[in-house]
């Protein structure tokens, strides 16, 4: 048995563990073990790589691992669940930069053309992923303004950058020893990442991150081709597929095409005037309490506002009290409620809501007409009936949670301000809707203290 066979087998095992881990992510009951299986695969892959006979000096490696590992561990332990979107963005950028560096380091004067092409690809994709993710991080964490940055001549600048990249890459492949070409490509890739993301609004960042996540997988694939390593290809493809599928899901749930997300915004369509009939009926926490007390079936529909208000724990308290009061309580989760796919599930799970109480949109909609009270907590677009009723609405056709089918709807938000899509919500004017104005956490706090007294 030669070492190369052992290495090969090790990589086969590692890839198998990644695949198995991903398979186990298919159900909440096995997901945590699945993550560990995947981590075990990573461990195997890294140990196998460390045993490689070509390695003569472990100091750089160990140094890099210790530094990186410590930073990773500290960040992972301390990050708040509400900041997950920006953390994923940041990590994603790091992955991209690692691919960039690997591609760069793999360069040697005698590389074959095929290898050079894959090196350029891994540098390019890695570079775009790096700066693109950093901008996305900045917008999400509000370190940068979250607006769309548009300037005249943007198209021209972008075209020039693309031309520069293509030209630089071609020259580099033909003459890899000339570092000017290399640095040009690296520099332009970094610039391009910035240019691509700045014109996109902050709220569209989840789509961007997911797409860049897919790119970081592709960058790993390209690096795998460059250094002829299967496990990079397998793992990279899995990541690439995951990013693309999540992007698709988000676009579908928002009823927008990917190019619409990337190249325009809602801005152009949102300034139309919709005639909405009905009037707004505010309600006090006191009155809401009386209705809730009498309810035997309650559906809670959370949205981005719940994350902003950090209201998940008090939501759980409310649900406990309602259940103690004899009501049946379910949560209706829209696939793009919040600011990343599955955002609400993580927040509610953190607050100890069991996952079998978290119903997906398709499960909760059919039973909505037997619900006494639907409580909408900081959600807006995902419960907007215009998506079903107003054909001229920009979100017409987007699947939403039909809270208006419930006997009574409480909407908890601070004002009549619109949601992410920037459009009016006829729900607020419906006969059976009551607006409970105020910060979600505070409003819920009042309901909880009334119910528990």
């Amino acid at each position: 048995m030669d070492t190369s066979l052992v290495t090969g087998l090790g990589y086969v095992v590692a890839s198998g563990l990644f695949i198995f881990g991903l398979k186990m992510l298919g159900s909440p009951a096995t997901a945590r073990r699945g993550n560990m299986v995947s981590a075990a695969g990573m461990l195997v892959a890294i140990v196998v790589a460390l045993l490689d006979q070509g390695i003569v000096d472990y100091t750089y490696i160990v140094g890099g691992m210790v530094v990186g590992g410590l930073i990773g561990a500290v960040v992972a332990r301390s990050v708040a669940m509400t900041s997950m979107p920006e953390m994923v963005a940041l990590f994603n950028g790091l992955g991209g930069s690692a691919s960039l560096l690997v591609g760069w380091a793999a360069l040697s004067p005698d590389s074959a053309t095929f290898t050079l092409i894959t090196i350029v690809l891994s540098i390019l994709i890695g570079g775009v992923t790096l700066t693109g993710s950093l901008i996305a991080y900045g917008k999400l964490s509000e370190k940068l303004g979250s607006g769309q940055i548009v300037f005249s001549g943007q198209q021209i600048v972008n075209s020039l950058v693309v031309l520069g990249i293509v030209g630089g890459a071609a020259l580099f492949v033909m003459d890899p020893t000339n570092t000017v070409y290399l640095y040009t490509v690296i520099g332009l890739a970094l610039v391009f990442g910035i240019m691509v993301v700045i014109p996109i609004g902050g709220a569209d960042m989840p789509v961007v991150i997911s797409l860049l996540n897919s790119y970081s997988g592709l960058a790993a694939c390209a690096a795998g081709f460059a250094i002829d390593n299967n496990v990079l290809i397998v793992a990279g493809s899995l990541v690439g597929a995951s990013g693309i599928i999540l992007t698709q899901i988000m676009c579908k749930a928002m009823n927008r095409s990917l190019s619409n997300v990337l190249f325009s915004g809602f801005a152009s369509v949102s300034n139309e005037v919709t005639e909405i009939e009905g009037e707004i009926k505010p309600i006090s926490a006191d009155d809401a309490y009386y209705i809730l007390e009498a309810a035997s079936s309650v559906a809670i529909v959370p949205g981005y506002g719940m994350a902003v208000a950090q209201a998940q724990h008090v939501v759980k308290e409310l649900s406990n009290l309602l259940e103690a009061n004899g009501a049946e309580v379910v949560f209706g989760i829209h696939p793009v409620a919040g600011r990343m796919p599955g955002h609400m599930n993580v927040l509610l799970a953190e607050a100890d809501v069991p996952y079998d109480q978290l119903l997906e949109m398709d499960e909760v909609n059919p039973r909505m007409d037997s619900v006494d009270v639907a409580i909408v907590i900081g959600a807006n677009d995902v419960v907007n009936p215009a998506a079903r009723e107003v054909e001229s609405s920009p979100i017409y056709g987007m699947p939403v949670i039909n809270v208006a089918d419930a006997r009574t709807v409480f909407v908890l938000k601070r004002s009549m301000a619109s949601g992410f899509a920037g459009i009016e919500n006829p729900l607020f004017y419906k006969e059976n809707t009551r607006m409970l104005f105020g910060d979600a956490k505070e409003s819920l706090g009042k309901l909880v203290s009334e119910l528990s007294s």
Partner: protein
Amino acid sequence: MNGAEYLLFILMLSIFLGFELINKVPATLHTPLMSGANAVSGITAVGAVALAGTGKGDLAQWLGAGAVALASINVVGGYLVTDRMLGFFKKREN
């Protein structure tokens, strides 16, 4: 056949497999899926290790070391935060 075609085969099979598997992940777990995928993309560490260990002390080795560090953040941070999240998901105890 030479190496490149094997790699293409592996690429094609993994992409198909990735789509099949990820389409089965329920919406409830999409956030952990995203951060878990992030951790997996730290696989570049494997490539970086070989480059950082040449012992030549040249630019490539420094680049490799940088890549090891960056990818390690991804790996350690990604798996830990995913584990933390998934730890929250509990079934209703009856």
